[in-house]
């Protein structure tokens, strides 16, 4: 269990965050300069916050009220730096053994051997960091951080410097890591799909604040506000007001689209009638239909960008009132035939894929 509640004034913004994780993997996502790395440094004790409270399991690491500020050496926090920060003058073995010098020689040997095995770098023990590829350095950094069996593992953009194929392999290995590391893992990333794959919980940062910190499914299905929706890649945000509520269905009047949208509300807390809300839908969830139906609007392709496995379309909606409204859709190539630019069709916004954002 890691509890964090810290404030720190920084040039440009104030960091003011609070969250707790309990034996889970937390992905910290957000734009650069939003305080993600600073939070990690504060937890590790490398930079002191201005005030607050940090507790790891039963140990208080920092408490401004009672003047507790444990040095990083006593915090049992493992840290994997963005550029790995390996000791360039030590071999891989000595790097990994650096934090377990208190053990007997035999135990150190054994433990380093185990970690080299787990990280799949058995044959690299006698190399120096500069003789390793980025992916190998990453593994050494992880092995070195895990050797002293930390209570929490912090990783600052662990995969940002890697090639795609190496990155994917390391992501899978990180998921396997949970089999032998039962602690909290926090990692910073600016890649939502990476964060979603690896974590159980996502914290969305912006300008030194946490906008939402919930299970990853919840963050994606129900963004707390427009900023979270934008940061988590919700491309279509439609302004409207709640017109009618019936059971789990919420009708939102959308003047821009010249109609109403039915939203299948997921959570119990329903909005009030008349409330101004934003309806969000990810580009991947927008469907193309050939005839008008519920939540369906006529539109014309104004731009199509072909990706490897899907095509991203920008649709300009047609009709009397909805004209000029743009919707983005990402359609899988294997499921939908390509639509050429200028072609007309109907866009369907599935009610169970829409989310209501109360701002």
């Amino acid at each position, binding site marked *: 269990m890691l509890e964090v509640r810290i404030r720190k004034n920084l040039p440009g913004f104030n960091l003011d965050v609070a969250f707790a994780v309990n034996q889970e993997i937390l992905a910290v996502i957000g734009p650069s300069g939003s305080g993600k790395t600073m939070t990690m440094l504060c937890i*590790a*004790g*490398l930079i002191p916050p201005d005030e607050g409270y940090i507790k790891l399991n039963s140990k208080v690491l920092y408490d401004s009220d009672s003047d507790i500020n444990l*040095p*990083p*050496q*006593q*915090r049992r*926090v*493992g*840290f994997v*730096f963005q*550029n790995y*920060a*390996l*000791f*360039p*003058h030590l071999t891989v073995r000595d790097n990994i053994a*650096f*934090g377990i010098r*208190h053990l007997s020689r035999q135990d150190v040997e054994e433990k380093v051997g185990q970690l080299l095995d787990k990280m799949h770098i058995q044959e690299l023990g006698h*190399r*120096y960091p*500069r*003789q*390793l*590829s980025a*992916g*190998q350095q990453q593994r050494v950094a992880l092995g*070195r*951080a895990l*050797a*002293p069996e*930390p209570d929490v593992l912090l990783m600052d953009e662990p995969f940002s410097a890697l090639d795609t*194929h*190496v990155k994917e*392999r390391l992501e899978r290995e990180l998921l396997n890591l949970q089999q032998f590391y039962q602690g909290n893992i926090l990692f910073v990333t600016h890649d939502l799909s990476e964060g979603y794959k690896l974590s159980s919980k996502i914290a969305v940062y912006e300008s030194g604040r946490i906008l939402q910190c919930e299970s990853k499914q919840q963050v994606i299905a129900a963004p707390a506000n427009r900023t979270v929706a934008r940061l988590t890649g919700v491309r279509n945000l439609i302004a409207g007001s709640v017109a009618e509520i019936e059971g789990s269905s919420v009708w939102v009047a959308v003047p821009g689209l010249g109609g109403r949208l039915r939203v299948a509300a997921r959570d119990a807390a329903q909005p009030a009638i008349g409330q101004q809300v934003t309806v969000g839908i990810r580009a991947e969830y927008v469907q193309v239909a050939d005839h008008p139906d519920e939540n369906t609007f006529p539109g014309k392709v104004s731009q199509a960008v072909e990706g490897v496995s899907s095509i991203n379309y920008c649709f300009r909606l047609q009709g009397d009132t909805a004209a000029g409204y743009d919707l983005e859709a990402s359609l899988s190539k294997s499921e939908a035939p390509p639509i050429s630019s200028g072609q007309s069709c109907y866009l369907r916004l599935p009610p169970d894929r829409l989310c209501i954002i109360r701002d």
Partner: protein
Amino acid sequence: MAETYLSPLWISLKTVLTATAITFFLGIAAARWMARYQGKFRNLIDGIFILPLVLPPTVVGLGLLLLFGIHGPLGKLLLLFGASVVFSWPATVIAAAVVAFPLMYMTACGAFEQVEINIENAARTLGASEWRIFWSVTLPLALPGVAAGAILSLARSLGEFGATLMLAGSIPGRTTTIPIAIYFAVEAGDNHQTIMLVLIVLAVAFGLLAALAYWKRRATNTGNIPLVPQDID
């Protein structure tokens, strides 16, 4: 005959090695301390550390003479223990060390700054004490730069003339170092003595240049670790 030029060589070697050993540790300690110190006197202290490099050596010598003379604060203190350094061999060491100190200090500052803060931070999160981090991480990584600084300050103290003459004078067999011996040999028109001393200085200078080149290469090369082709993950 050999005695006349071997004596200054011997005195110079003793002086230079002692002075370099002192500046080496003092320079590292000062650089290390300044890296942490963020107080309001930072620029002032930094300036004082570098001052002997900027001032004419005769002025430094005069300052040391005022400090260590029988009326100076340090001179009086030493007199309590029945000691006096002015015009003695230790004076050559003091003069050489003070004049060479800024070079060691500045190079060490630069070398420590080059050590990436996250590497030291990684050591901290791994539980290493600050003492262990300094000896097993910071110093080894800064070593090429620190060694270059030691060679520079050694060269500077070998060439030291003005401050040494002011504080230590020229007492043959006791305080006459090579540069001072050369000056008086030239003044006395003793060509043989001059040439022998100059040749000795040249030999030492080339040795130092070679050592400096070696450590400079180490500094840019981060150790003599062979680079092997990288494996594909």
